[in-house]
């Protein structure tokens, strides 16, 4: 049977997995027992719990013999009677299995990028599974007469806390790194990671290892751990937060054992209880923050995708409409049917408006996502302005749009986007000067800068609003201005485009007399 053959083939691999896991479990357990165990068996730095739960979640329940063997052997060698060691082994195995079961049952995401995943771990899987291990373990010790009843409670407490912290910090740390991040990391992000790592290490050394020999009674500096953790959580999500917490935990444990951390007032086991509680609160706080940030990022990404798709779906019918209207226009122009032509021109104007609106909304969503790409090409500004003015002149029979001055030189930038800025400003000039007869486009240049101004003689902008006019969604509201509808994103987009070209944009305006919108661009700029 092929299935049997398959199993036979895989059996050694399964064995290797269990033995490898057993070896890791055993060595980390040995290390834990050597660090401040309460009543010899209840350890506060218990790596195996977190390790075991992560392993079961990643490789499946079949790994359980590794846990049982590891926990049994390490406790036997630590001096526990045979049956007690078996009891502890069973407790530790059940801990990993029950924790993993709870998490799997409620579809826990290994990325911990949703609040519910963090809460599921912190409020349910972690306390419950550690409770099972601590209770079975301490009962075994008591029944095997290794500990007295009077010390059961303190042993149980240390056991429970030690296991919980391990499951809280190590399991998610391993899970978030179980998938290696793919994709190229930009240099800036790489530099930020380097800086953050340095920050975490320096803070860890100062707070937990007494760098600069700070006396914690005089200068309690424990709060210093918050800035790097918040930085990691906000910028690098759950993986970043957990990596920072993990690094700080190692430094904290080493510092506390060496008597250098703020948690050094009593016996080592008491100090470790205090330290682990502190680290636990830190971990939960950072994980929640990171998960909420990740949720927000996911939501924003979905929104961007939706807007982008909606824009596409809106533009496709517009393409047909515009094409057929222009075809009709050609046909009726040949026949000389003026009345129909004027109707078609109105339809074309409306379609243009709609098309511009959709483009603006798409650009805005891309801008917010930081995904608006810019080309870098030589732009003949004089030709560009001539073409745009010529096209826009068709849209107004009332205004005469004139050009004064010349750029004379090319600039480097994104022709399409710069055209968009000019169209936006001139269209605004037309829209907000309903009774004026002219609009002037001025060009002036120094040896390194080109300045373009669009002057209208319209309603102008009240002084109080001039600063705010380039802000997103900002609209000038006053009774009479209600007659000028719009979304308040055109100028924001124009401003951003000019800024991306290393240029500046500003407005000079006098209410009732008109406005002049200007922007300057460097001749050798970069887009």
């Amino acid at each position, binding site marked *: 049977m092929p299935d049997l053959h398959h199993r036979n083939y895989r059996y050694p691999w399964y064995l290797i997995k269990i033995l490898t896991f057993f070896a890791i479990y055993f060595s980390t357990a040995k290390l834990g027992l050597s660090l401040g165990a309460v009543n010899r068996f209840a350890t506060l730095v218990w790596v195996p719990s977190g390790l075991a739960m992560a392993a079961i979640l990643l490789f499946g329940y079949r790994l359980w013999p590794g846990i049982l063997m590891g926990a049994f052997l390490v406790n036997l060698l630590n001096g526990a009677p045979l049956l007690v060691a078996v009891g502890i082994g069973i407790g530790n195995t059940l801990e990993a299995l029950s924790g993993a079961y709870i998490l799997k049952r409620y579809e826990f995401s290994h990325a911990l990028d949703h609040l519910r995943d963090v809460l599921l771990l912190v409020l349910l899987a972690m306390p419950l599974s550690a409770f099972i291990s601590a209770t079975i373990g301490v009962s075994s010790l008591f029944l095997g007469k290794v500990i007295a009843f009077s010390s059961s409670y303190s042993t149980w407490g240390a056991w429970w806390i030690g296991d919980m912290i391990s499951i809280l910090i190590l399991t998610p740390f391993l899970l978030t790194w179980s998938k290696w991040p793919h994709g190229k990391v930009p240099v800036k992000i790489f530099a930020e990671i380097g800086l953050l790592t340095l920050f975490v290490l320096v803070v860890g050394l100062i707070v937990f290892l007494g760098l600069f020999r700070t006396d914690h009674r005089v200068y309690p500096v424990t709060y210093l751990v918050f800035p790097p953790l918040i930085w990691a959580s906000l910028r690098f999500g759950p993986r970043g937060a957990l990596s920072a917490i993990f690094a700080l935990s190692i430094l904290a444990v080493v510092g506390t054992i060496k008597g250098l951390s703020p948690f050094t007032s009593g016996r080592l086991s008491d100090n470790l209880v205090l330290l682990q509680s502190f680290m636990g609160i830190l971990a939960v706080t950072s994980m929640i923050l990171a998960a909420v940030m990740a949720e927000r990022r996911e939501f924003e990404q979905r929104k961007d995708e939706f807007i*982008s798709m909606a824009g*596409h779906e809106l533009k496709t019918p*517009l393409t*047909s409409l515009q094409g057929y209207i*222009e075809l009709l226009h050609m046909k009726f122009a040949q026949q000389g049917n003026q009345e129909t032509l004027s109707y078609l021109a109105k339809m074309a104007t409306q379609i243009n408006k709609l*098309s511009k609106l959709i483009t603006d909304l*798409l650009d805005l969503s891309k801008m917010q996502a930081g*995904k608006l*790409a810019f080309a870098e090409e030589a732009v003949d500004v004089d030709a560009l302005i001539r073409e745009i003015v010529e096209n826009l002149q068709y849209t107004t029979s009332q205004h005469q749009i004139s050009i004064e001055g010349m750029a004379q030189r090319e600039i480097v930038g994104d022709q399409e986007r710069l055209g968009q800025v000019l169209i936006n400003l001139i269209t605004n000039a037309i829209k907000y000067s309903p009774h004026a007869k002219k609009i002037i486009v001025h060009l002036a240049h120094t040896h390194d800068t080109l300045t373009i101004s669009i002057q209208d003689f319209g309603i102008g902008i009240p002084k109080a609003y001039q600063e705010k006019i380039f802000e997103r969604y900002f609209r000038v509201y006053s009774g009479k201005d209600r007659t000028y509808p719009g979304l308040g994103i055109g100028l924001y987009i124009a401003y951003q485009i000019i800024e991306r070209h290393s240029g500046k944009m500003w407005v000079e305006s006098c209410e009732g007399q008109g406005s002049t919108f200007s922007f300057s661009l460097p001749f050798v700029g970069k887009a």
Partner: protein
Amino acid sequence: MKKILVVDDDADILDMMQLILKGEGYEVQTSLNGACFQQMYSELPDLIILDILLSGADGREICQQVKSREETRHIPVILFSAHFSARDITATIGADAFLPKPFHLVELINLVKRYL
């Protein structure tokens, strides 16, 4: 007569392109998903106008195929898309020009004239 192949998954846009380009004196072949790319070998077009997001096919792949084969490499490809960001992949996939949708007839005709 110069031949133009237009690929778009919207039948109305194909009809419209046919009307416009025939009016300009070109022979036009249309395809909803680029399937006729395979038949192209008997009679190669002189220009391809290609949408990127096609239902059931990928305009980028079609463009890359055209540009990777010796016998079709010389054919100019104009990408046209309602995604303005598609402009950024024009050079990457070897296309010659990009036309954002919606467009004015004169823009389309000028672009076609530049390559034919």
